[in-house]
């Protein structure tokens, strides 16, 4: 039996939930290395212009998806699809992603505004989730981003997050204003 065919079927069945390399290995009873070879092979067969699907690694799982270049055709099936995240939502998500696990007050502190409603919205959208409670006073809920968050931005794993621009040495120096002369008039 062609394992590559089974793999294709598995990915079709799982849809946007996808499968991890480990899961595929368990199901097919083969080592991870072999899984990786299989996936590469499958991906290659999809590379051709005459194929409509491809294999993507999104949110820590392998998923069967359509191809970017055909998007315009799928678009014709939808009426309107302008449901992008708001600036506030993006900010909040970014703060969580680069600082997780976080409690809400940390987010509030950075944004300078109360974020409780936004956090609730993001939980409802499944982009972040509660993972427990902190030992801080009031035992606040701890949040982190989900695999759906990664998938939403087309990212395979957290390592692929765009690097946050670190404050440069110069900037850090400049923040040290201990000895600087006040220029207030």
């Amino acid at each position, binding site marked *: 039996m062609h394992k590559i065919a089974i793999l294709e079927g598995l990915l*079709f*069945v*799982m*849809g*946007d*939930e*996808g499968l991890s390399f480990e899961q595929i290995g368990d199901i097919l009873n083969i080592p991870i290395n072999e899984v990786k070879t299989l996936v590469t092979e499958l991906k290659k067969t999809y590379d051709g212009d005459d194929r409509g699907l*491809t294999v*993507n690694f*999104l949110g820590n799982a392998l*998923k*069967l*998806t*359509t*191809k*970017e270049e055909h*998007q315009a055709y*799928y678009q014709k099936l939808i009426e309107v*699809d302008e449901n*992008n*995240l708001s*600036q*506030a939502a*993006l*900010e909040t*998500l*970014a*703060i969580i992603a*680069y600082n997780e696990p976080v409690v809400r007050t940390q987010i509030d502190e*950075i*944004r*300078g*505004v*109360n974020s409780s409603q936004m956090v609730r919205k993001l939980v409802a959208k499944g982009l972040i989730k509660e993972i427990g409670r902190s030992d801080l006073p009031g035992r606040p809920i701890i949040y982190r981003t989900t695999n759906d968050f990664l*998938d*939403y*931005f*087309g*990212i395979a794993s957290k390592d692929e997050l*765009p690097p*946050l*621009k670190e*404050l440069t040495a110069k*900037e850090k120096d*400049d*923040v*040290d*204003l*201990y*000895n*600087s002369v*006040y*220029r*207030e*008039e």
Partner: protein
Amino acid sequence: MDYKVTINKFEGPLDLLLHLIKQSEIDIYDISIEKITKQYLDYIRAMEELNLSIASEYLVMAAELIEMKSRLLLPPVQEDTDDNYEEDPREGLIKKLLAYKQYKEITTQFKELEEKRKQIYTKAPLNLKPDDYQSESVNLSILLDAFDKFLVRKQLDQPLSTKITKIGLTVNERINKIREILIKQKQVKFNDLFDIINKEYIIVTFLAILEMAKNQELIIKQTNNFDNIILSIKGSEINA
């Protein structure tokens, strides 16, 4: 200076400050608290004039800016401690602004990623489990029975129809009636006046009796506790 105020344009006081700093081309590391405070307050005032409700966070920041400004106006304490350390009040604010700016700026990249991801589609997983509802015990007649029961329940759900009748009896009418009775019968038992059990009738009758008593028309007698109360009309007793 002209301020164009747009509703909800800013995500918070830090965002507004960053905007003002950028607009007036100030170096973020060397912000003039005096200038920025003025601009910030002007903006807040403009918002107020437009009757926009200002989120409390903006006011907190305004207060902090004013405090910072006043601290900077005080002459630096010349105590000259060993390490010559004096904290610049701006430092905390600058740190906050820089931290916020980092995240605000990276959202551009997230937006691009979001757009790119929207170019491809996938699908929901198939349901591989046999349908829970499909079992031998379910057939069409059971479904029909259930639907019948539902229809009956629906019927019972209807609001009960009831009639509301209004007697429209006024206290004056009742007074006249009682007076008539009293003139005819000389006296009457209190209970006998409540000959119709109807809330309105009872209330109107009671009010009528009170009204007549108030007008000194009635003599009300009760020999012992819980005996019948006997009503008679004043004039009639004198006549009697």
